[in-house]
């Protein structure tokens, strides 16, 4: 189906985007040909959405050229891009639920009549566009009355109004079920056969393999390569996405020594059939003292969801949990804390830091919350505790009164860690503790995790970076499609083995 000979409709060369001091994209090349479905692949933070935003004019590249239909362009924003035939449909449907389907489709391109709107023509034209999508719904009905899948299709319908040469679909399938995905793919293929170039972003590997013709893989803001989908095995793709940054590997010492667990020891936390509808399938997991359990899997595979059930951040609707052999229910984070379970969220900004408070207040927050407001920690004890963790974790600036929002991401992460260490937890669940922080801080946190485990703490470690999980974990639970698919010994596991499990081939 791919028009190998056709000149690219979009050609981006040497694109760099910087958010000082971070280089979000570094000299990335990307081309999109008419009549192809092109998947843009990469883990979180690889630069997929930055590339899309550079194309549509939301971010201004610091270097590189963008050509659309052979003409060099820098769009001023999505509206400008759309006027030149480049339309984007985002993960969250960006439409007005309170307007009708027709109004949503024709918004910005309304047929006019005598200074007002020509409502009849609007409905007629909208109906034509809907017909093309194979959507049989009343253009006069309100958008909010339709399912999310239909709304998604309406959003695509809206994007194709006018002269649409390039259609960008950012995670269009994340909230759709199998039948709805099938319908979406039918529509995508029809558009492709009409000569539209489709850029498709999805975290679901099987979907990418089902629908895409070619793919471009990004990692850490750099281009890994462009591949023909049919020629690239899934395991190879996962390897490309996750990478093996050996220099980081060698920066810290080998820490995953086999923990010596006495036979017949009671797990610190034992869960059986714990699950939550729409979040993660029921799973079993035993966590022992002094052991680091890594969770591996792609984004959206259920890693975070599993952690949230273990820590009471979300409430499980099936299954049992036992803490030190005693049945209990982890209904709230507070209840989990009562059992010595601590959780740092992957969403540091949204669920971790309290950026308007000081370093000191952030560090004592959990401990103080546990004691209740009526029993304030004595100031002297607070100062000692805060000084201890600033020293131990190397928090910079070493000023307890600094507002947290003025600290770098890595230091904010250390403060959140300190908040939990101050509560002296028995089980520490770390969700992406090293994401978005520099290599030095990363190595420090890894080292700290190893030390905590050596001191008898049980740690659950989640990371998108596989080599990090491999190095640090005594045991690895592998997640795929919101299910725990395997549990392997961390000491003997190889990268290839885990990659195979993640990609759904091999032993699974």
């Amino acid at each position: 189906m791919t028009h190998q000979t056709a000149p690219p409709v979009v050609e981006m060369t040497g694109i760099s985007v910087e958010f000082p001091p971070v280089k979000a994209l570094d000299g990335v090349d990307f081309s999109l040909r008419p009549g192809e479905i092109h998947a843009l692949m990469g883990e979180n933070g690889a630069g997929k959405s930055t590339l899309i935003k550079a194309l549509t004019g939301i971010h201004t590249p610091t270097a590189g050229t963008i050509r659309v239909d052979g003409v060099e362009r820098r769009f001023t924003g999505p509206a400008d891009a759309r006027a030149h035939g480049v339309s984007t449909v985002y993960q969250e449907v960006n439409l007005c639920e309170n307007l009708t389907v027709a109004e949503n489709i024709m918004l910005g391109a309304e047929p006019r009549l005598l200074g007002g709107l020509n409502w009849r023509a609007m409905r007629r034209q909208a109906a034509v566009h809907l017909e093309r999508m194979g959507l049989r719904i009343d253009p006069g009905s309100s958008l909010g009355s339709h399912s999310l899948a239909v709304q998604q299709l309406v959003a695509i319908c809206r994007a194709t109004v006018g002269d649409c040469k390039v259609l960008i679909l950012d995670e269009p399938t994340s909230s759709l079920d199998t039948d709805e995905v099938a319908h979406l793919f039918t529509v995508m293929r029809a558009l492709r056969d009409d000569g539209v170039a489709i850029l498709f972003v999805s975290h679901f590997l099987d979907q990418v393999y089902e629908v895409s013709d070619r793919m471009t893989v990004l990692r850490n803001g750099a281009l890994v390569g462009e591949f023909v989908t049919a020629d690239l095995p899934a395991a190879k793709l996962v390897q490309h996405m996750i990478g093996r940054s050996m220099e980081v590997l060698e920066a810290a010492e080998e820490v995953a020594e086999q923990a010596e667990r006495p036979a017949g020891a009671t797990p610190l936390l034992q869960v059986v059939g714990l699950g939550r509808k729409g979040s993660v399938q029921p799973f079993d997991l035993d966590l022992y003292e002094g052991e680091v359990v890594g969770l591996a899997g792609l984004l959206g595979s259920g890693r975070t969801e599993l952690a949230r059930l273990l820590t009471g951040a979300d409430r499980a609707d099936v299954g049992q949990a036992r803490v030190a052999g005693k049945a209990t229910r982890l209904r709230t984070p507070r209840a989990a804390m009562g059992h010595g379970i601590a959780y740092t969220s992957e969403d540091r900004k949204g669920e971790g830091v309290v950026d308007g408070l000081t370093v000191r207040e952030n560090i004592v927050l959990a401990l103080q919350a546990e004691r209740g407001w009526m029993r304030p920690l004595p100031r002297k004890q607070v100062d000692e505790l805060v000084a201890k963790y600033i020293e131990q974790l190397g928090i910079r600036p070493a000023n307890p009164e600094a507002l947290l929002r003025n600290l770098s991401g890595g230091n904010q992460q250390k403060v959140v860690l300190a908040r939990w260490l101050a509560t002296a937890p028995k089980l520490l669940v770390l969700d992406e503790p090293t994401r978005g922080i520099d290599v030095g801080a990363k190595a420090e946190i890894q080292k700290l995790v190893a030390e905590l485990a050596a001191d008898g703490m049980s740690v659950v470690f989640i990371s998108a970076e596989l080599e990090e999980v491999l190095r640090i974990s005594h045991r690895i639970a592998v997640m795929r499609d919101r299910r725990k698919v395997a549990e392997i010994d961390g000491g003997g596991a190889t990268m290839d083995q885990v990659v195979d499990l993640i990609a759904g081939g091999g032993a699974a």
Partner: protein
Amino acid sequence: MRDVLRHHLFWPVAALVALLVANTVARPSFLAITVRDGHLFGAPIDILRITGPLLLVALGMTLVIATRGIDLSVGAVVAVSGAVALSHIASSPDPESPVTVLTAIGLALALCVVLGVWNGFLVSVLGIQPIIATLILMTAGRGVAMLITGGMITTVNSAPFKVLGSGFWLGLPVAAVIAFGVFAVVAFVVRRTALGMLLEATGINPAASRLSGVRSKTLTWTVYTASGLFAGLAGLLISADTMAADANNAGLFIELDAILAVVIGGTALSGGKFNLSGTLVGALVIATLERTVTVLGISPLVTPLFMALVVIAVTLLQSPRMRERLTAARRRQIAVPPEPQPAASPDSTEVKAR
């Protein structure tokens, strides 16, 4: 000097001083305090007395605003409180007995606590937006007060109750002593326990606070309850001043004055960091402003307009963006060729859009 200018209380205090100066210019005897029958008299004492109820309401409002909320129902709660107390006294055989008065106070405060609990329930358990949740009681509360008074303005004679509004204790107005006393105790408790920090954490990042084990729901519920209680106490002071239970007009618009006092005091309506000393100054500014209107002989018809102008001035001076512009303007005057501002407005909208 710089540090003084930067202090968060600088502009509110400056506004207060400016108002006092304006009053003294208009009436040189304004600041004079005389002793009559062992009681202190004079405009400043009067200002303290009328600050009392507002300060109590603003105290509760500050705590509610710290959790990202707002309590619009306080005016109605003031009316309910006065209606309950005065109706109970009026219907009792012995309005002068301290027992009757204490029962009346107890009943009124208990009902106001219930109203506060109701607001807290709507916000923290049902998750209704605070502005809507408290709007319900803002309208319904006046109806409840009306029901209690039977639609009439009940006037009562009861010396022990009247003391709350116009009595003196150690030479100072009882209303002021109670309000400032309660304020001081609450401020002390909030800052000496961990309550203040936990409230701020809840207001700044509710999700992070929940994961850290902060009982955000309970805290939210507590502040609405406290707000109801303080509004009820304010209602007692107000009704004891007039000795008439007026369901329609008691505490009318006091919620707006209280919000203003909080904002003038430098607590952002977006929640989080709060500043009780600022609220104190804010309440004093508003009470002084009300007083100024009479001293300057401004017609009651245009009083709201005058008050609005002063409030606009104070809030503008506090706005960081406005201050930036002022400093920029001053710098431009110094720099010799005044360069043309290159498209300032599109720039600023762009920033906002992000």
